[in-house]
């Protein structure tokens, strides 16, 4: 508890001979137990033709395995009052099941059954195709989704970060069941997985059960590292989309370093100074969403000044160089030129002057707050332990916490100078067409 200021319960880590990394985080008084399996497989491991395969496999892992016929996983978990879900990102896919603690064996059985033996039948793949198509259509209704997809497509020409985890429309329409099975056989297995058990359980008994259920699984899981390197950008890239919407919207991206880069803590501070809440140290599973913060620079310069109705920045540490983004929705009557100019002024000022002492103090207060209460409930514990274990290691969280409190204003300024280069900028604008939506 409270190691380095991160209020994480003690975690017992071990690895099975087949490569499965196991993390047990017992909380004696917890009425629930949460089981997470994190695969280091995500859209980064796909290629054109099978974009969206990780996400599709995520769906298929609920559609049948030797001991659980189609629909049986859902029924078994929900019947005991549990909840379950999964999500796919660029660098990982995570599955979780939280149950009343006396039912812990159920999710362990499910995960051991589907880790290497999911059925992925032709019939179920065909049926799921429309479901996935529908999920994508739902996202396409939002201009923000379309803009972000375009932004990454524009920014990356070689690296797999150029497509969204949902996959391209055409690939969803054409990918075969055999392609999905091949993808699953290659990458899914103990060697690419971390199993996290958090909440109310007896650690010795659970360790024995984990060993019994998972040790016999084959040591599958090919190398998931990505060989393609994106060349350095040689100038600004921009594009404009149009379609239904309310007011103009813009997203600007700059090439950003990978998680392993020593500048990661400084980049996280840049993100917090510009955007608001700490992305890493916030309560619950706030990995992608974030709350507005009235002291954030973008908010003050754009929303308070009447140029935008929403404005924030975004940076999630990733395994490979990615994008640092700023996005803003214009207030009525404000042009995208004006909005873009204001964004540029904000980031340039940060690169020129760095954050103030007060801002550094505010940001540190937010980080401390987030770290103190981020670990409440078995599900949140499983999420955080799994996330850091997958991104690199559990110690990453402690290191980041210490570094975030240590980074100086000068280092943040220096990092802002490196990030916000005009020749590394990508801009996607969205111009709403027509009326807001009357028939």
């Amino acid at each position, binding site marked *: 508890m409270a190691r380095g200021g991160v209020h994480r319960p003690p975690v017992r880590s071990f690895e099975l001979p087949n490569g499965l990394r196991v993390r047990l985080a017992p*909380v004696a*008084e*917890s*009425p*629930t137990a949460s089981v997470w399996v994190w695969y280091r497989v995500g859209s980064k491991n796909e290629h054109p033709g099978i974009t969206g395969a990780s996400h599709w496999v995520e769906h298929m892992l609920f559609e049948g395995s030797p001991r659980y016929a*189609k629909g049986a996983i*859902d*029924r078994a978990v*929900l*019947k*005991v*009052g*549990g909840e379950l879900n999964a999500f796919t990102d660029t660098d990982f896919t995570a599955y979780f099941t*939280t*149950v*009343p*603690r006396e039912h812990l064996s159920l999710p362990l059985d499910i995960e051991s059954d589907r880790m290497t033996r999911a059925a992925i039948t032709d019939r179920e793949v*065909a*049926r*799921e*195709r*429309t*479901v*996935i198509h*529908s*999920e994508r*259509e739902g996202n*396409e*209704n939002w201009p923000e989704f379309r803009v972000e997809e375009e932004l990454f497509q524009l920014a990356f020409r070689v690296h797999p970060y150029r497509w969204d985890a949902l996959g391209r429309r055409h690939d969803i329409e054409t990918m075969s069941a055999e392609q999905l099975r091949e993808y699953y056989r290659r990458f899914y297995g103990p060697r690419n997985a971390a199993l996290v058990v958090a909440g109310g359980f007896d650690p010795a008994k659970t360790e024995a059960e984990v060993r019994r259920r998972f040790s016999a699984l084959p040591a599958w899981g090919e190398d998931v590292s990505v060989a393609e390197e994106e060349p350095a950008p040689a100038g600004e890239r921009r594009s404009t989309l149009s*379609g*239904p*919407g*309310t007011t103009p919207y813009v997203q600007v991206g700059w090439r950003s370093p990978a998680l392993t880069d020593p500048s990661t803590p400084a980049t996280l501070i840049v993100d917090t100074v510009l955007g608001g809440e700490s992305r890493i140290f916030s*309560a619950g599973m706030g990995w992608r969403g974030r*709350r507005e*913060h*009235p*002291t954030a620079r973008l908010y003050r310069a754009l*929303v308070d000044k*009447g140029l935008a*109705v*929403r404005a924030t920045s975004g940076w999630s540490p990733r395994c490979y160089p990615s994008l640092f983004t700023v996005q803003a*929705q214009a*207030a*009525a009557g404000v042009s995208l030129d004006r909005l873009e100019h204001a964004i540029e002024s904000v980031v340039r000022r940060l690169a020129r002057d760095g954050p103030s002492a007060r801002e550094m103090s*505010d940001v540190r*207060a*937010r980080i*401390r*707050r987030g770290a*103190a*209460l981020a670990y*409440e*409930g078995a599900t*949140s514990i499983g999420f955080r332990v799994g996330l850091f274990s997958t991104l690199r290691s559990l110690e990453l969280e402690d290191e980041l916490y210490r570094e975030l409190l240590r980074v100086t204003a000068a280092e943040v300024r220096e990092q802002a100078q490196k990030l916000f280069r005009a020749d590394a900028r990508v801009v996607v604008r969205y111009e709403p*067409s027509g009326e*807001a*939506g*009357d*028939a």
Partner: protein
Amino acid sequence: MRETTDPRFIEYGQDLDGLTVARQAPPAGTASFSATYIGPGGWGFDPGSKSGVARVVSQLLTSGTERQSRASLARTLDRAGATLASDCAPESAEVTIWGPSADWEKLLEILAEVVVTPRFAVADLQRVRRQLLERQLRELSQPASRAEYELFRAIYPEGHPYRSTGLGDRRSVVRLTPEHLRRFHRDRYTRNGSLLLVTVPAAFGTVESAVRRSFAELPDGRTPELRFPPVRSTRPRIVKVDLPGRSQVELRIGGDSIARSDPEYPAAFLANEILGGRAQLSRLFQRVRERGGLVYHASSELEAMRYGGYFEVGAGTGADRWRKVADQLTNELARIGERSPTTAELRMVRESSVGELPLSLESTADAHEIALETAYHRLPGDYLLRWPALLRAVRPRDVRRAAETAMDRDHAVTVLAGPLDTSVP
């Protein structure tokens, strides 16, 4: 005593001059505290010519106090390790603070300051106004929100509190002044009809004293009443809104329903869970997504409030599939009201609902949320403990009968919003 440590139990005190104080123990092993003020500041109380005022007041509660500007309040919260959130609904408005339990008395004082002495600065009003005007456009532009907007307008008559989504109309929102906000706040954020729920590891007497101290300046006010014009039962209708250029059609089928205090609520709750509320176990998920492969999401909701409620069945699907999906949603809605579920189906859904209670008590924030729902409806302190028995007393025929009343398909409205013109004939 079990009541003082079991988060399923809510202790109520005597009204403090109209303000009801309730206390819940946090889940074991948690280190946070949560408190919510909830009172009759919902948009059902918007004066006719000032639609949107409740929403603006609610949003501005977190934007500073007489003593602290918005930035200063944000810094106070950051340093206290706390988070503040406000929200409003047709009948009520609420403000919640969440932070470390070690400093709960200090945080309660911050909550009181926010509720009792909001700033309503002109610049903040202008900001929220701009945001609200954009949200009004978004509500009409997005198929999902547009479908809900049209559904409520089709179900409820003019002047009914559930008819709008609280965003107000443009004409009214642009004319709101700080004085309008102050007047609404003065009339609606009062002791009478309000509740303060505190989830904290402290004895009730200590909590009550702290509330008495912190909220001493909350005015008495008078208990306001909502006006409910009669909802006329009509034949099933279809409302179509063509939104060209979107990818997906959103469907909603809904109607007027029962209040939370209705004796049939437990049976109606289970009817909704069987139909579409219990995620993957529900009929809608099974039929429309799992077997039909037609949608990503299909679900139903029973929103039982203090004075009434509504139900809705919803799904989003491609422009080429919406007719088939609409048929399936309609058929399932009809089936739940026509035939009793089997004993096995009822048992599975019921035990799932009973079993999830521990998951609702994982964190202080989770536990606080279900206690707030219980306390707002003035349900007994041991209601969450008795909830499993209430559900287990429901028989299959009770479910059918409750569905007939609470999810009346004969008077339901169907709304379609999305790219309808590109659909197959």
